[in-house]
């Protein structure tokens, strides 16, 4: 069984992909950063020396030291531990928002590219409307709409932030998928499937979608980073995760007034966001090169 698997073209392809990836140091660096964050998110409780939300009023606003690697905040909470716990929130926001927007966007794009005509026209104009608003402004509007008139949230504030960002990221997937579908639709193997009497559903999901995946994967990887920035942005202005949640954006928000003297409270979460986004962008760039059929042989 295993012998047979090794001969499978899929594995040969994978090996070749690894080879291509190995040639780009930057994407390897990106992958390393991502793996480091994954490690942090999985083994949080082992890495973090303190509980993230335990208040220790005896040790408020300590500068970075061996005891508190990134210092402590105004309630004496260990910034390092909070930042490590923040990794989990970053992955939660990123993965959830990307999977929602990816699923909805891909479906819409597939539908509109494959059906064409009125379906296409209506869907794409809707997407244009979404794109006509600045990204963050629209997200803010959506979160506000999810708030109760007397204040407070219908949903969990973190979730409403994620939902808002998911909605505003849909158009980019929809447009991307529509474009690829339009070109794959014209290939002869799709026509052959039609000549065999395959149903539209089968053609769309068996023939067209698997051949349009490459750009979607790249886009999803790249946007994991940007989604986290936007989510952090929302919590920074108080519309996403709320304090005392150790979410990076919220950490920066609460640390921003302390910045001139107690710089460590906001700086370290900021650096984490930077690294997180950079990791996914570098890796995404590498993926694009690997999946580009022109570079393959």
């Amino acid at each position: 069984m295993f012998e047979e698997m090794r001969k499978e073209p899929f594995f040969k392809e994978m090996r070749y992909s690894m080879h291509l990836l190995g040639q780009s140091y930057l994407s390897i660096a990106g992958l390393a950063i991502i793996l480091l964050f994954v490690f942090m998110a999985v083994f949080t409780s082992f890495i973090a020396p303190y509980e993230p939300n335990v208040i220790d009023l005896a040790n408020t606003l300590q500068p970075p030291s061996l005891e508190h690697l990134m210092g402590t905040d105004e309630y004496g909470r260990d910034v390092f531990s909070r930042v490590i716990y923040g990794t989990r929130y970053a992955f939660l926001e990123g993965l959830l928002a990307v999977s929602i927007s990816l699923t909805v966007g891909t479906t819409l794009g597939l539908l509109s590219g494959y059906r064409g005509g009125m379906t296409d026209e209506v869907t794409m104009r809707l997407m244009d409307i979404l794109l006509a608003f600045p990204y963050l402004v629209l997200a803010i509007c959506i979160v506000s709409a999810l708030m109760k008139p007397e204040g407070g949230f219908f949903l969990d504030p973190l979730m409403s932030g994620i939902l808002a960002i998911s909605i505003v990221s849909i158009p980019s997937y929809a447009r991307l998928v529509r474009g690829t579908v339009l070109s794959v639709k014209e290939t002869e193997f799709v026509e052959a499937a039609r000549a065999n009497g395959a149903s539209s559903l089968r053609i769309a999901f068996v023939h067209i979608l698997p051949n349009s995946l490459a750009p979607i994967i790249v886009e999803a990887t790249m946007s994991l980073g940007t989604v986290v920035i936007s989510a952090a942005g929302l919590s920074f202005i108080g519309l996403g995760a709320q304090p005392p949640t150790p979410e990076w954006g919220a950490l920066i928000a609460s640390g921003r007034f302390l910045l001139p003297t107690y710089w460590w409270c906001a700086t370290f979460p900021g650096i984490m966001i930077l690294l997180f986004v950079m990791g996914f962008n570098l890796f995404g760039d590498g993926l694009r090169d690997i999946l580009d059929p022109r570079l393959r042989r």
Partner: protein
Amino acid sequence: MIEMERATTDTIILAKDLKKYFPVRGGVFSRVVDYVHAVDGVSIDIKKGETFGLVGESGCGKTTFGRTLMRLIEPDGGRIVFNGEDITKIKGKDLAEIRREMQIVFQDPFSSLNPRMTIKKIVGEPLLLNGIKGKDLRERVIDLLALVGLNEEHMNRYPHEFSGGQRQRLCIARAIATNPKFIVLDEPTSALDVSVQAQILNLLIDLQNRLGMGYLMISHDLSVVRHISQRVAVMYLGKIVEKGKTEEIFENPLHPYTKALLSAVPVPDPDRKRNRILLTGDVPSPVNPPSGCRFHPRCPYVKEICKEKEPELKGDERSVACWLY
């Protein structure tokens, strides 16, 4: 039920006055400003077990005709009769039923196989769509691969591991999977090298002898058409200009276009000095085809009438559309 001229019981498919116009859109509101007259009234009939050749240069509408005949493109006029049944307007389940009986092999063996499917899935797809599953499907796929000169080992591989010739064999295997009665061959060898082209042509002839399908061989290569077909039609700008038995057309071409086309083919014999009829100019645009006979601006024998009135395809077995005859 259907009135058919000359359609006998041994006719597998018949097209009568088939038309396909593609709209040309332009202007601010993408209005239809004009039409490409891709297929403009083409009639042919193909017998069971016969190969009918359709030759012409690029843009003459031969590929569109093949697709329209199979209902992959909706016709804008005319009728298609398949195996005694009018299929011009059928839909849904009836159409799917008919699809099983007519198949197509495309020009480019690289883009006509889904790169993410294994050979078993590709060749088995038409079977799967007809409700054949599991062990039956597997056995049938092995049989089909053997028929086209490949073997069982190839089943779990992907298309990119095969050469152009092998891929074309796979396309043929897929096309014959449901035992069709009629296959459109759309330039099946023009992407292949000559040594491989011969293999594929021999395979096609062999399969026809064994399974008795009718072929519509669409090609720009006159020598290939001569080799494989019993009857030939020559197309120019959406219309058939000459039609008849292969031997007669090639030995004694009547239409000036057929004559020029035949004389233009380079022959691998350095001693052969032929009287080449060099046509001037290019093929005109099918959006605004010339008045009268569509070939008149390039014809060496042009007369007054050619510019004004369109000649009809005259004759029964051997027909030609030219005012000279």
